[in-house]
């Protein structure tokens, strides 16, 4: 039950999607005592992770067949991927339009892409906002458009029952192709957007995302003109004010073009008949000359900076440490995937086992990386109780340093690789995951056999690969360190890592508290 509008779906505090890797008992137990007694650790006995190896594990290798969606290109250039799945009376579709995302929008109008997407639901040539909502929901369907900050695409996501597919698909097409951008609805949208601008500042996770994005995507985070488009995480009061129906309509006209789009459909459909229908229904969507341009290139920071957002009364400190790593086409994607599993990709990874299962500093700490059409961050993050901020920082740095220096033990590496491959195999149960693999291949121009050979590529990652990518992308001397918490309590925990730049929750520079 939700009347909420689409929210920004990008989470730059990149969290892993699935579970992970390993652990080598001997290594942790030998290595930890050096870091065992940290400030804030009240000296309770360490709660050790142990392995008894008595549970029965099948060593049989599962033969997995990778179903392949059918691929067609319509006369207007729209690429179509279809995967039939008749188990449930459902159809899910994503229409992904490259070049219509936030990274392509003009610097003076942050939010143009997301506002355009949101306003497609607020009126067409023949339907009012209310009619769209009633007709869609009466069919049990859900149709959303979004273009989140940091994204390179705009997406239409529609799902509904196969029983009445033709009816809700017609609504989706009406919204996509014939929006009216009614002035009255835009005024209402602006009012709500203004409130959301205020609301988001109450979340420590938002504040960490905002500050970390500025840290990695700006030459000087205090000077917005030095920031790449990737740095934006929300509209501004000024840009909301400046949105006009004309700006939205011209963005839609120019950017929502079929030759730059991919339509992925999974569910209870018949491919042949559907392709014929799509060819007919999309005939009115004309191609243009617009060539999709890659987003501006990002660059890793060359020296360490420390940023602290002062959020009074915080009982936890939200910590983020990372730097720009790789884009999706980088050959290091595979070794980084394995290294991340070992480092912080899930509850069986080093960060979780150390900071939560051994130290009890946190409910959860993870690492993750954003590898899209531009190189995003590889980062570790978590919320820790205020009084152990210093100890938690010590452990974060300890784990980062260790990953880049000490070769991963064979058993730990083997388990990490095995878990990545097995998780991939299990994901094939879900048609959306399957079709997303095909979409990734299309968006990033990956080789035709990329997914068939993915398990073999993962299995070939060596301990030296892991050390190399960790040392290269997570160099402690170049890390960007971002925290949100109560400055008067936690500032000293960060000062040992460099001069701390202090901000208030509105994003303004603060002077350090006098002690």
């Amino acid at each position: 039950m939700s009347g909420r509008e689409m929210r920004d779906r990008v989470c730059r505090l990149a969290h892993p999607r699935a579970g992970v890797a390993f652990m080598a008992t001997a290594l942790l137990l030998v290595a930890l005592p050096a870091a065992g007694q940290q400030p804030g650790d009240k000296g309770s006995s360490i709660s050790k992770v142990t392995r008894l190896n008595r549970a029965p594990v099948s060593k049989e290798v599962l033969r997995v067949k990778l179903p392949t969606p059918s691929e067609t290109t319509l006369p207007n250039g729209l690429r179509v991927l279809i995967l039939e799945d008749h188990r449930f009376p459902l159809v899910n579709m994503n229409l992904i339009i490259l070049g219509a995302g936030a990274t392509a929008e003009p610097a003076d109008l942050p939010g143009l892409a997301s506002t355009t997407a949101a306003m497609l639901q607020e009126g067409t040539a023949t339907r009012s906002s209310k009619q769209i909502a009633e007709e869609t929901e009466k069919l049990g369907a859900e149709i959303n458009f979004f273009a989140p900050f940091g994204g390179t695409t705009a997406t239409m996501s529609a799902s509904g029952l196969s029983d009445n597919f033709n009816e809700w698909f017609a609504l989706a097409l009406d919204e996509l192709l014939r929006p009216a951008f009614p002035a009255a609805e835009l005024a209402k949208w602006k009012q709500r957007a203004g409130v959301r601008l205020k609301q988001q500042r109450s979340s420590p996770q938002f504040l960490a995302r905002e500050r970390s994005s500025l840290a990695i995507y700006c030459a000087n985070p205090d000077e917005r003109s030095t920031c790449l488009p990737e740095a934006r995480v929300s509209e501004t009061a000024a840009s909301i004010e400046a949105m006009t129906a004309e700006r939205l309509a011209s963005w839609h006209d120019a950017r929502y073009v079929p030759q730059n789009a991919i339509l992925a459909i999974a569910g209870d459909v018949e491919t042949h008949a559907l392709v014929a229908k799509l060819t007919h229904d999309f005939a009115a969507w004309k191609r243009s000359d617009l060539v999709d341009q890659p987003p501006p290139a990002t660059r890793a920071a060359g020296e360490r900076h420390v940023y602290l957002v002062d959020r009074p009364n915080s009982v936890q400190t939200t910590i983020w440490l990372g730097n720009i790593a790789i884009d999706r086409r980088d050959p290091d994607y595979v070794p980084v995937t394995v290294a991340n599993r070992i480092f912080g990709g899930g509850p069986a990874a080093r960060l979780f086992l150390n900071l939560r299962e051994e130290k009890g500093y946190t409910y959860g700490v993870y690492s993750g990386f954003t590898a899209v059409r531009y190189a995003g961050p590889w980062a570790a993050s978590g919320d820790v109780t205020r009084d152990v901020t210093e100890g938690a920082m010590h452990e974060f740095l300890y784990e980062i340093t260790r990953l880049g220096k000490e070769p991963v033990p064979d058993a730990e590496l083997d388990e990490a690789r095995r878990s990545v491959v097995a998780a991939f195999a299990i994901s094939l149960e879900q048609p959306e995951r399957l079709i997303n693999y095909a979409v990734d291949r299309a968006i990033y121009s990956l080789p035709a056999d990329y997914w068939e050979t993915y398990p073999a590529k993962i299995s070939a990652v060596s301990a030296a690969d892991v050390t190399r990518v960790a040392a290269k992308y997570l160099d402690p001397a170049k890390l960007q360190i971002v925290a949100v918490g109560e400055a008067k309590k936690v500032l000293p925990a960060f000062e040992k890592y460099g001069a701390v730049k202090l901000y208030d929750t509105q994003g303004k520079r603060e002077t350090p508290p006098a002690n």
Partner: protein
Amino acid sequence: MRNRKMILTLGSLLLGVGMIAAGAAAAGGRQAAAQDLARTNAKPAAKPMAFPIEQHKLDNGLRVVFSVDHSAPVFGIAVTYDVGSRNERKGRTGFAHLFEHMMFQGSENVGKGEHFILILNNGGGMNGTTNEDRTNYFEQLPANQLDLALYLEADRMRALAVNEANLQNQRKAVKEERRLGIDNQPYGATDEALSDILYDNFAYKHSVIGSMDDLDAASLDDLKDFFRLYYAPNNAVLTLVGDFNPPEALAKIKKYFGGIASQPTPARPDLSEPPQTAERRRKMDDTFAETPRLDELFKVSPGEKAEWFAVEAISAILGGGQSSRLYQRLVKEKELAVSVDTDLENRPGPSPFQIEVSLRPGADFAAVEQIVQEELDRLQKEPVASWELEKVRLTSRRERAQRLRSSLARAVVIGELTAKFGDPNVINTSESRLDAVTPQDVQRAAQKYLSVNQRCIIETYPKQAAPGGAQ
């Protein structure tokens, strides 16, 4: 209550299972039967959505439910224990959930943390969750790892190994979970106050996460008593969904679980509530919140009753999607609010129904409350439109299909329904029961449960925090 419907051992990161499980039991949908006369625009009969159910009971009382699906070489398993925060006593709030964390701390033949590692290394997803009425543990694995899953679940049901160091460690993790979800978030205190204002009976009145003091007070002896009382085979349901051979699986279940001794059946807690005869109201200041929020709460029918399905329809008609009555009036027409949510839980006792309105700053609380009341009054006075019930049915059918595609989600939902309502077939009957709801049913349910004297209201106001940094 949406925000604390269920708390997880690991957060909701793993394979999205947290999302799948949350509220899944509330799903309804449309069956082919066109028994509702209000539906004028009858569609061709929809494909029925039913899942095979096979039931067994071991000699020690363990209930076993199978639902076979060979479409992918994967299975989902859930072990659901008939214990939740409703079973806690005063001074030990948060205990059921703390205990759930301890179930990952090792057993006779499984080391601390080894459970995570074994499941995840084999590609699986797993978690444990606690709510008011039940505690569950679940994992998904490739079809060839059935022995592993059964061994891990049986070992901790039979011989959980707890020690002081692990208890201290997980107590800290749970306190961090509390800080992350409540103490450091806007509206955290409000979310915790929802059940407190709504219920009189301690069973549902206190929060699942519990108080810091009570968490500190939990001892190793408490853990041992709790384990003996509630973690017995006769107080659990094992559900297995996906790619397996039932006779072979049953033989394995008997091998791993058969030797675990049953225990005396724990007394079922009294969940009854005295009738509420006057409105309740609370005003709260929130130092983190930036905008005001209005919450209205009602105690309604226990789950899975005919009246409960009528309230489920009310919930969708008032707050489901942008066509909903409250969204249209408060957000679009009057622009007094920026979002509206409604939520109904599916509990064996009186279920909570919540309306949550996020106000536009400066908007008049009384005006918002007035409009909510007008809509509640209207439900009592006039029948709802047939298109609104059509929306309820079809939306529910879609959401249910999406949720239940994963074998793991099905295992979790079937286990939850069996533990709470005693019958795994509930997963196959809720669709037609929601379909059967008529405009008159909706009106009667609104009259019975949603009167002014039955409402509880919380007004939350942003309060400027004292400056903490610059002096």
